[in-house]
């Protein structure tokens, strides 16, 4: 009986956390993976590899609804997505195997560093604005395409290693290097995130690291949370939310680094 009540408390906490993450993610305009993994590890005490594996499957669930809308409306630039996706997928598989090979402490430390980078980028964007713009480049040179393919490999590797969607790298990559307008970049990234998470997720799923109950609870929490966030978008200032989000992420990154070092 105590085990069952513990499971219920854990599920309730996970649901509440997922609801909040979905709400904030929708307003901040980024995927929930970067906040979900530290939440599962630091607050609920999950093993870092189980949290990463579970997060990847949750990313597929949450990105699919947005990607299906973008795909149906013809907003996804399939030419660009299919050009850089093979290297992203390859990166995700390599990343997943790197995480499986590394000891959990090293993974926590590396995750802390990545979250530190994401939070610093978001903090900079919310304080002094962003370079990402509406304008697009009409002709993309072959060397830029090569750079895009290389960076997308790294984005995929981060996704597979740390259970994040990688949109924080993919959107600026598609916008600034591959020359897509920002809305097309967001739609294309959303479509790519699911495919990248699939390739990484399969590696973890085959090893039994994915927690199905957590996936179900998180998915059921994130979806209404994101819908609520999208509805509140007009009333709240996205810049302020991004600032709060980046500070929470900064705190999570610091705690991950400290717990990995001590």
């Amino acid at each position, binding site marked *: 009986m105590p085990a069952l009540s513990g499971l219920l408390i854990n599920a309730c906490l996970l649901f509440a956390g997922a609801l909040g993450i979905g709400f904030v993610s929708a307003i901040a305009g980024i995927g929930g993976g970067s906040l979900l993994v530290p939440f599962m590890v630091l607050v609920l005490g999950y093993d870092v590899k189980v949290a990463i594996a579970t997060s990847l499957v949750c990313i597929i669930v949450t990105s699919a609804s947005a990607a*299906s809308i973008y795909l149906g409306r013809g907003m996804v630039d399939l030419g660009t997505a299919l050009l850089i996706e093979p290297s992203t997928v390859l990166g995700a598989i390599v990343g997943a195997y790197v995480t499986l090979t590394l000891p959990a402490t090293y993974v926590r430390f590396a995750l802390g560093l990545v979250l530190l980078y994401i939070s610093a980028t978001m903090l900079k964007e919310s304080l002094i604005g962003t370079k990402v713009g509406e304008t697009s480049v009409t002709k993309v040179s072959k060397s830029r395409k090569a750079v895009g393919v290389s960076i997308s490999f790294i984005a995929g590797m981060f996704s597979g290693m740390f259970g994040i969607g990688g949109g924080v790298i993919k959107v600026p990559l598609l916008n600034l290097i591959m020359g897509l307008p920002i809305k097309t970049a967001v739609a294309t990234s959303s479509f790519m995130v699911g495919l990248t*998470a699939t390739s990484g997720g399969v*590696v973890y799923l085959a090893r039994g690291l994915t927690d199905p109950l957590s996936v179900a609870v998180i998915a059921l929490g994130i979806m209404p949370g994101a819908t609520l966030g999208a509805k509140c978008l007009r009333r709240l200032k996205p810049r302020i939310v991004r600032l709060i989000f980046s500070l929470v992420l900064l705190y999570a990154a610091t705690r991950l680094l400290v717990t990995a070092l001590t």
Partner: protein
Amino acid sequence: MYREPSLILRYGVITGLAVSLAGLVINEVFGVGTVTLIGMFIIVLTPLTSLITISLKLASKKDLRKFTLSQITIAVIIASLIISMLTK
């Protein structure tokens, strides 16, 4: 234009989630975890199924460049699936 892949993406994950939830109940009552695993695989393989549908559409439109790129992505994902199953 891509209505079918879009529908697969939307309803694939919902189906996977429903199967997983049913599987969790079955696991609790009968101690069988296979249904949950099937649900997880449905979720994970939904984007791949959507991409295969896109690939077929590209083939029917005779867009050779995009079709080839989609085939490469499909091949890499399927290869990773096979390798993961063989090396677990």
